[in-house]
C-alpha cells in the first residue's frame, strides 16, 4: 500500500456537522492525522442525527455520523473548563492546519482567532468556513442547509413551475462548498510546502456555491431573465424526464438529444405507430408536444422494471438511468466497483459503511481504513502520542475534569 500523500500533515479539527469535516476528509483519506476536538456542549449535529443503531439514540450510534466521518481521532474536551485552553493550545502548536466551521466569532470567544493561533504557531494554516464568510453585514446570520439552499438559489430552481419549489434533498450547498474547501486546503498546504508560510482561509459557502450557477447570474445581468424551475424538461431534448416503471415508486430517467438517439429510442420501444407521426419527427415537434410525448413514453416504460428500461436504452445508445433509491445506491455495482463505500468494523455499530473513495488516483488511491471515532475515543492516545504529554501531565488534566 502506498504512503498517503499527506502523511505527516496534522490537523486539529474544531468542526461539526458537514462542510468542515467533509473538506478535511480529503486530507484524512491521504494519510493526514486528523484530531476532532469534540464537546457535548457543542455536539456535532451528525452524532444526534437519526437513524440510530437499533433505534436507540447514542453518541456513537448515529448512522449519519459514522458514515461521514471516518479516518480521524476524537478528543473530547470541555471548552467551558478553565483549563481547556491548555489542551487546545497544545493542539494548535502541534498542528499544521486548524480547521473550524462554527458560527462567526466562536473561535475568537475561545481565544483561538487567527492572530492568536499565529502567536502559538507562526506557520499555521487556519481553514474557516461558514454560511456567509467571516466578514460583512451578514457574517453572523445563522442558518442550516435549508436556508442556504434558499439563499443560493438552488431551491428556487428545483421542482415544477406550476408548484411551490422543492428544496433539493438534504443540504446541497454543503457538498458544493466542501469541494472548494478541499481544493483550498491543498492549495494552502502546497503554498506552505514551497514557502513555509501559513495563512488564513475564509470560505463562504454562499460564495462558493454560486459558482455552479454562474451562467444564470449572467443571464439575469444581460437578458434580465430570472431562471425558473422547469421540472425535468430540457430546452434541447425530448423525451427528457423520469418515467414511471413497473413497481412501487420506480422510475427511469431517459434523455433523447439527437435524431439518431430518437431513432434508436423508437426501435427499443418497438416502433409503435405514434412514433411515426410527423409531429414527433423533429426536436422542435417533440418539444411542442412534450406532455403528450411523455405520456406515450410512460405507457411503454411502466410495463418494465427500471433496470430493464435502462439496459435496453443504453445498449441501443440512448441515455437512460434508473432513478436509484437509497437501497439501489448501496447495492449499485458501479459504486461498489469504485469503492464508494467501505465496510469497516466499528466498536458499537459492528461492520458499518463509511464514505470511501470520492475519485480514483492511479498512484495514490484514498485509504479509508479507520471507522468514525467514538466520542472521546482517542483523548488519552492523542495527548500522550501526538502531543507528547507525560503520564503525570495527562492524569493531572484528567483529574481536573477538562476532558469529557
Amino acid at each position, binding site marked *: 500500500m502506498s504512503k498517503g500523500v499527506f502523511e505527516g500533515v496534522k490537523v486539529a479539527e474544531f468542526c461539526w456537522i458537514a462542510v468542515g469535516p467533509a473538506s478535511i476528509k480529503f486530507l484524512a483519506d491521504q494519510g493526514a492525522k486528523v484530531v476532532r476536538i469534540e464537546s457535548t456542549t457543542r455536539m456535532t449535529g451528525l452524532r444526534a442525527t437519526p437513524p440510530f443503531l437499533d433505534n436507540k439514540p447514542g453518541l456513537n450510534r448515529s448512522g449519519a455520523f459514522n458514515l461521514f466521518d471516518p479516518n480521524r481521532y476524537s478528543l473530547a474536551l470541555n471548552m467551558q473548563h478553565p483549563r481547556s485552553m491548555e489542551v487546545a493550545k497544545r493542539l494548535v502548536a502541534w498542528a499544521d492546519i486548524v480547521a473550524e466551521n462554527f458560527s462567526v466569532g466562536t473561535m475568537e470567544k475561545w481565544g483561538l482567532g487567527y492572530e492568536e493561533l499565529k502567536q502559538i504557531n507562526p506557520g499555521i494554516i487556519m481553514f474557516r468556513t461558514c454560511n456567509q464568510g467571516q466578514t460583512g453585514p451578514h457574517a453572523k446570520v445563522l442558518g442550516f442547509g435549508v436556508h442556504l439552499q*434558499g439563499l443560493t438559489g438552488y431551491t428556487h430552481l*428545483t421542482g415544477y413551475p406550476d408548484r411551490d419549489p422543492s428544496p433539493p434533498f438534504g443540504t446541497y450547498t454543503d457538498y458544493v462548498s466542501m469541494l*472548494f474547501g478541499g481544493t*483550498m486546503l491543498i*492549495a494552502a498546504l502546497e503554498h506552505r510546502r514551497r514557502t513555509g508560510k501559513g495563512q488564513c482561509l475564509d470560505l463562504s459557502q454562499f460564495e462558493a456555491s454560486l459558482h455552479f450557477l454562474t451562467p444564470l447570474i449572467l443571464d439575469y445581468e444581460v437578458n434580465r431573465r430570472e431562471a425558473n424551475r422547469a*421540472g425535468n424538461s430540457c430546452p434541447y431534448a425530448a423525451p427528457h424526464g423520469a418515467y414511471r416503471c413497473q413497481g412501487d415508486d420506480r422510475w427511469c430517467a431517459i434523455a433523447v438529444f439527437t435524431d439518431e438517439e430518437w431513432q434508436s429510442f423508437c426501435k427499443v420501444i418497438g416502433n409503435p405507430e405514434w412514433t411515426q407521426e410527423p409531429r414527433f419527427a423533429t426536436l422542435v415537434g417533440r418539444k411542442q408536444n412534450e406532455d403528450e410525448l411523455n405520456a406515450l413514453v410512460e405507457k411503454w416504460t411502466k410495463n418494465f422494471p427500471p433496470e430493464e428500461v435502462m439496459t435496453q436504452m443504453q445498449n441501443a445508445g440512448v441515455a437512460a*438511468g434508473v432513478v436509484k433509491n*437509497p437501497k439501489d445506491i448501496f447495492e449499485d455495482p458501479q*459504486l461498489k466497483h469504485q469503492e464508494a463505500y467501505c465496510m469497516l468494523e466499528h466498536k458499537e455499530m459492528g461492520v458499518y459503511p463509511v464514505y470511501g473513495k470520492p475519485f480514483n488516483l492511479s498512484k495514490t488511491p484514498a485509504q479509508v481504513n479507520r471507522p468514525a471515532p467514538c466520542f472521546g475515543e482517542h483523548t488519552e492516545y492523542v495527548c500522550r502520542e501526538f502531543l507528547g504529554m507525560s503520564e503525570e501531565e495527562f492524569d493531572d488534566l484528567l483529574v481536573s475534569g477538562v476532558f469529557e
Partner: protein
Amino acid sequence: MEQQTKALLSSLRVLDLTEGGSLLCGKVLGDLGADVIKIERPGGGPSRNIGPFYHDIPDPEKSLFWFAYGANKRGITLDIETTDGKGIFKRLVKTADIVIESFPPGYLSGLGLGYDTLSEVNPQVILTSITPFGQTGPYKDYKGPDIVSMAMGGYMFLTGDPDRAPVRISFPQADFNAAGEAVVGTMIALYYRGTSGLGQHVDAAAQVAMIRWLQNSVPFWVLHKVILKREGPYMAGSSAVVPLRGVWRCKDGFVAFTIFGGAIAGKMMPPLLEWMEAEGMSDEGMQKLKRRQWAEFDMACGDAEVFNLMQEKFAAFFLTHTKSELYEGSVKRNIMLAPVATAKDHLEDKQLKARGYWVKLEHPELGTTLTYPGAFCKASEISCSLRRRAPLIGEHNLEIYQQELGFPTEELVALKQGGVI
C-alpha cells in the same frame, strides 16, 4: 488582504480538452493562477452551443455558459484526431503539467493519446479524466447526461413532490460535481508530484460525486431497511406528527424557514411572535403560541394542533411581506429565515457586495463589461481571482503555436487549410 497574495499555480500549464460542466475543473485551476489552455476542435467546441446566450443571440461567441467556464483560459483550436494534430498535442503535453479531459472512457487511448502514452511523453504529467461513471466498471460506457447522472447518483429519488416524478435541479449540476471532485483529485496529484516527481491518472465521476448529498438516507436503508421518500416543499422526516414546511409563499416569491424545537425555538420563536404581533396578529391562536415555553418545545412530542396552528400563522404572516423584508427583519431579530433567492437577488445581495465578491470583466468585442462571481474562497496568502474573459475561437492560436512553440507561418497556414487548427 488581497494585495500581497500570490498566484499559487502560475508556473503550471494545464491543457483543457473538456466540454460542458467539466470545464469548471480548468476554470478553478485558472482561478488559482494556472496557465490554462483550452483546446477546442476547429470552429469551436460544443460548449459554445450551451445557452443562455448574450442578448439571446445563439452564436458560438455569445454563450453565457462558455463565458462562465471558459474564463481564465487561453484558447486554441486543434483537431487531435488528425495525425498532425496528435503530433502537435504531444508537443504541447511536453510543456504541460496537467491535461484534463471529459471524453468517453477509452477515447484518448483509441487515438494513441491515453495516459500511458502521455506519461511517456512527459512522466510528470497528470491526466485528469471526468466522466459520468468513471474509467472502469460496469457502467463506464453508459451515456450520462445530467438527468441520468442525477438519477443514478440517488439524488433525484429524494427530491420533488411525492405525487409526481422525481426531479433534478433545473440547471444541470452533475458534471460540476464531478469537475469539483476532479479539482481536488488534481490538487492531491500535484502535491504528490511536488514531493515525488511523478504524475498520475485522476479518475473523477459524476455518479460517485453525488452520493454524499444523500445524507442519512443510505443509513436509513442500512440500519432500518427504510427507504426515505421525497416530500416536496416539506422537510423530509422533520416531525412524525404533521409534515412541516421548509418553503413558504410570501408576497413576491418564497422564503425558506423551518420550525425547530429546543434551544433554537427558545431563541427564535419569541422575537418572531413579537414581530407578528407588532404587525397586528393578536388573535386567540397567537396568544396561545405566545404563552408557550419555547425552549422546552420538543419536536418529537409536539401535538398536531400546535404544529398546525404555527404553520397557519406563519403562512399568513409571510404572505404580507416580500422576501427581502422578511430576510432583513429576520437578520435583525436573529431568526433563521432566508429568501428563496434568484439571480436578481444575488446581484443585489448586501453581503456579497460588502465582501467585494463580484468581479467585472471586459468583453471588448461586445463593447460591454460583465459582472462575474469572484473568488470562491478568500485567502490571506494566495490569490483566487478572475483575470481573463473566456477566449474567442482560436484566439491564442498565433500566440501559442507561433510565439511559444515556434511553428513557422507557412506551416500554420497549411495546418489551418488542412483543418487541423
